[in-house]
């Protein structure tokens, strides 16, 4: 049952083969068994989860069932959840119980979904390996020596280890797609503005976007149906008609034009990943797709541009953690300035501090034009590359990550090396485009490899269709790590 799709679970609930309480208990038991080792969850609160499950069961009994009613979902600990510890992976918020629900959480609650727990993540979503979490790293269910990716590593590991049927994630530079790839699951980062950021703790506001992580494209579509939608409390939330993201899942791919950016298959890409991606492309060709070579010449600029803009926004977004109103406050200080300094020195980890310092620097008088303004201009060039490419193709494909999961500790002392692991995902955030990752094989070490699919703005339904057709013809997404 823990291996079932969302549709199958929903059918079992509808047919009363299982109750939401039983389903929730089953997953709570799996969390009990595997989480001490994997550390995918920061907070599990069976009482709260089961209370929600009981509500879901009465909704089902009353015939008020929706596709996600009664289904347990793991929530990334970046989403404020009323009454739940909401830490964002930081010591700064290690005691913060949110007094309100994020828009996304409200939607899950209203639909009768069950909050299964809050998943581990890199501190304030800053990291690609989950090693920056104050609560310790998550281990990759496929190989305990490997990182699960980040920042949504807890969500990815929870789904991979079947400790949740599905989870939420957020993606600022690859934080849904890269851990999905490294843990062998599916994840989609929607078009910027599709999912409300209200209550989603900000890292870099112009890049942050929430999205679902699950076992299959079909599950993602069901989750996205719930998560997407306008929210007047987020000024960057788009006003659009509601869409059914499952509507095109079964469309044939005959004539699909797949753009392969030559820059994505250049130096730095591991041979195993290249091989797996090429194999996936061949599979698509068998399904009737055509391959077009495209160029995204400014891709090489995306990491430097990102590491100016994201820290700039972060340095300001994280100013509110000052120890005054909530969150961690240092003990023993002589005056206000010392309280700020000690609180922030003790409350933030090294990577967060590094980015706050970079961001403060690039926004400083005399550097702003050279860094921030310049990066904004380049950001437009990067976005233009994509819009030109979409003149020639329907979707862009390539690797999600240059390699399969690396070892815990392998890159944690070399920030730049770590940053490079997001080379294929970051440009998508800079352009605000939707991007997804689906399982496409394994490396020699048995660690999963992800195929990245990038679509044009608002083409999520098309991308999910493209992913679903692949999953109908392959079984990579059905593989699960060898845990009971």
């Amino acid at each position, binding site marked *: 049952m823990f291996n079932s799709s969302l549709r199958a679970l929903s059918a079992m609930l509808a047919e009363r083969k299982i109750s939401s309480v039983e389903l929730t208990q089953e997953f709570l038991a799996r969390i009990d068994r595997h989480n001490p080792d994997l550390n995918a969850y920061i907070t599990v609160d069976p009482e709260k989860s089961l209370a929600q499950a009981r509500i879901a069961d009465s909704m089902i009994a009353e015939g008020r069932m929706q596709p996600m009613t009664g289904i347990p979902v793991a929530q990334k600990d970046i*989403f*404020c959840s009323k009454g739940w510890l*909401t830490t*964002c992976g930081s010591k700064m*918020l290690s005691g*913060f119980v*949110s*007094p*309100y629900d*994020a828009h996304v959480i409200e939607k899950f609650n209203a639909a009768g979904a069950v909050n299964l727990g809050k998943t581990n993540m890199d501190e304030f979503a800053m990291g690609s390996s989950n090693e920056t979490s104050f609560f310790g790293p998550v281990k990759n269910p496929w190989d305990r020596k490997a990182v699960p990716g980040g920042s949504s590593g807890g969500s990815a590991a929870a789904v991979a280890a079947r400790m949740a049927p599905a989870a939420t994630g957020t993606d600022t530079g690859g934080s849904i797609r890269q851990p999905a790839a490294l843990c062998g699951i599916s994840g989609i980062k929607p078009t910027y503005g599709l999912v409300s*950021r*209200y*209550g*989603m*703790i*900000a890292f*870099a*506001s*112009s890049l942050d976007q929430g999205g679902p992580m699950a076992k299959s494209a079909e599950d993602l579509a069901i989750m996205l149906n719930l998560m997407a939608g306008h929210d*007047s*409390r*987020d*000024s*960057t939330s788009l006003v659009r008609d509601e869409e059914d993201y499952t509507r095109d899942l079964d469309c044939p791919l005959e004539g699909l034009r797949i753009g392969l950016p030559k820059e994505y298959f250049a130096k730095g890409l591991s041979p195993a990943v290249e091989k797996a991606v090429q194999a996936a492309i061949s599979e698509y060709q068998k399904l009737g797709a055509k391959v077009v070579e495209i160029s995204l010449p400014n891709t090489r600029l995306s990491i430097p541009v990102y590491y100016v803009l994201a820290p*700039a*926004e972060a*340095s*300001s977004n*994280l*100013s*509110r953690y*000052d120890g*005054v*109103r*909530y969150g961690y406050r240092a003990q023993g200080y002589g005056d*206000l300035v010392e309280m*700020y300094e000690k609180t922030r020195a003790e409350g933030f980890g090294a990577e967060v501090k590094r980015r706050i310092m970079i961001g*403060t620097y690039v*926004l*400083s*008088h005399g550097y*702003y034009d050279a860094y*921030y303004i310049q990066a904004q201009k380049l950001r437009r060039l990067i976005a233009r590359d994509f819009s030109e490419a979409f003149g020639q193709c329907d979707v862009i494909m390539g690797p999600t990550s240059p390699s399969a999961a690396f070892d815990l500790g392998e890159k944690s002392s070399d920030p730049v090396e770590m940053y490079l692991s997001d080379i294929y995902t970051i440009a998508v955030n800079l352009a605000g485009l939707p991007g997804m990752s689906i399982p496409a094989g394994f490396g020699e070490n048995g660690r999963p490899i992800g195929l990245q699919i990038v679509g044009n703005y608002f083409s999520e339904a098309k991308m999910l269709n493209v992913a679903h057709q692949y999953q109908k013809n392959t079984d990579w997404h059905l593989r699960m790590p060898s845990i009971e």
Partner: protein
Amino acid sequence: MQWEVVIGLEVHAQLSTESKIFSGAATAFGAAPNAQACAVDIALPGVLPVLNRGAVDRAIRFGLAVGAEVRKRSVFSRKNYFYPDLPKGYQISQFDLPVVLGGEIAIFVDGVEKTVRLTRAHLEEDAGKSLHEDFHGMTGIDLNRAGTPLLEIVSEPDMRSAKEAVAYAKELHSLVRYLDICDGNMQEGSFRCDANVSVRPKGAEKFGTRCEIKNLNSFRFLERAIEYEVSRQIDVIESGGVISQETRLYDSVKDETRSMRSKEEAHDYRYFPDPDLLPLEISEDWVEKARHSLPELPHAKRSRYVSEFGLSSYDAQVLTSSKEIAAYFEEVVGIYSDPKVCANWVMVEISGWLNKSGIEIADCPISSRSLAGLLVRIGDGTISGKIAKEVFEAMWNGEGEADAIIESKGLKQISDSGALERIVDEIISNNPSQVADYRGGKDKLFAFFVGQAMKATKGQANPAQLSEILKKKLSA
């Protein structure tokens, strides 16, 4: 050496929206600490700002009223600094692309008109308050004010004296109230001034180094702070020193300004566009709607009072100095159509009594309708102007409407010529020697007879009629 003073003002006008500029919390003054601070105002993790259109509407109205450019596209930026009453660690403001650009305001100093140019006006949020008393060595934070919408109105350095600065501030104060965009309550901090002050040798082209004096919350403090600062700067320069650019605070108790922070200590605010807010786009349509909703503005009103009512420009200026006075006056004129008489009563009696009682026209115990009722009775001869002042005082004290007071106190003017003739006859027969002297050429004695008659009638004799009868009988 002769010195010239150069002053520019930055005024923070609190906009009169019901809710805050980026949240739905109420803006009302005086609530219990933090009772009006919602999740957004407290800057909880994950919250986001949503712009209040009412605040933008008010900025547009202001821009139109001062003849400024209302920009089609402006941008909100973050001004980053740490302070306990600044919950996000940044203030959302406008930096390089403000909503209102340029404009000008006419001021009057000693009857002379002068134009002060505006640099810009931009929207921003207010911070909370730090309370340093009653917390036993700690500081209390009240975030009720955090997020209150402000329009910061920045002038060019066009003022040349403290008096001009005050005239400008008063004109602006009057304007924002006319526009109904700010309640102008200075005690509650709804209208706050910062003054940039410098001096230079008369005739010099280059400005001197300026100091900014913060948070002047009354016109009197504004004037005194500038005067103090000007003499301080002149003293420093004349004794061989130099002025250093700095921010200074005015201490109203000691009546002096003192240094708050130097230019070197000034923050680097690291402004950048707020990624949580889209650029503010203002359509032509929105501007036109705002234009149509504008009330008659002070300068238009002033010229109408001169042309339509025949008032002097001085009177017109006094009556239009506040929206409420002008409205009161116009209501009185609406009922009693002698504008000059109405103007006199409003400017002399009403204003005088308001001043004496220390209250605003909104709390005036005599309504415009009641005052007009009194003026009608002067006009139709029921009472004299002199008696009217007595009736006015009774009205002020809440004794009722003019007619009721005239009736109950028996103040009705005696215009009955028969009655007046009998009184005059009696006076003539009781004062034979004065009559003889008057008839012998002592014209001044006429006043004596008027006095006698008024005494006999308790002042109620119709003066014109009485004088006519006296003249007739005395010359007989």
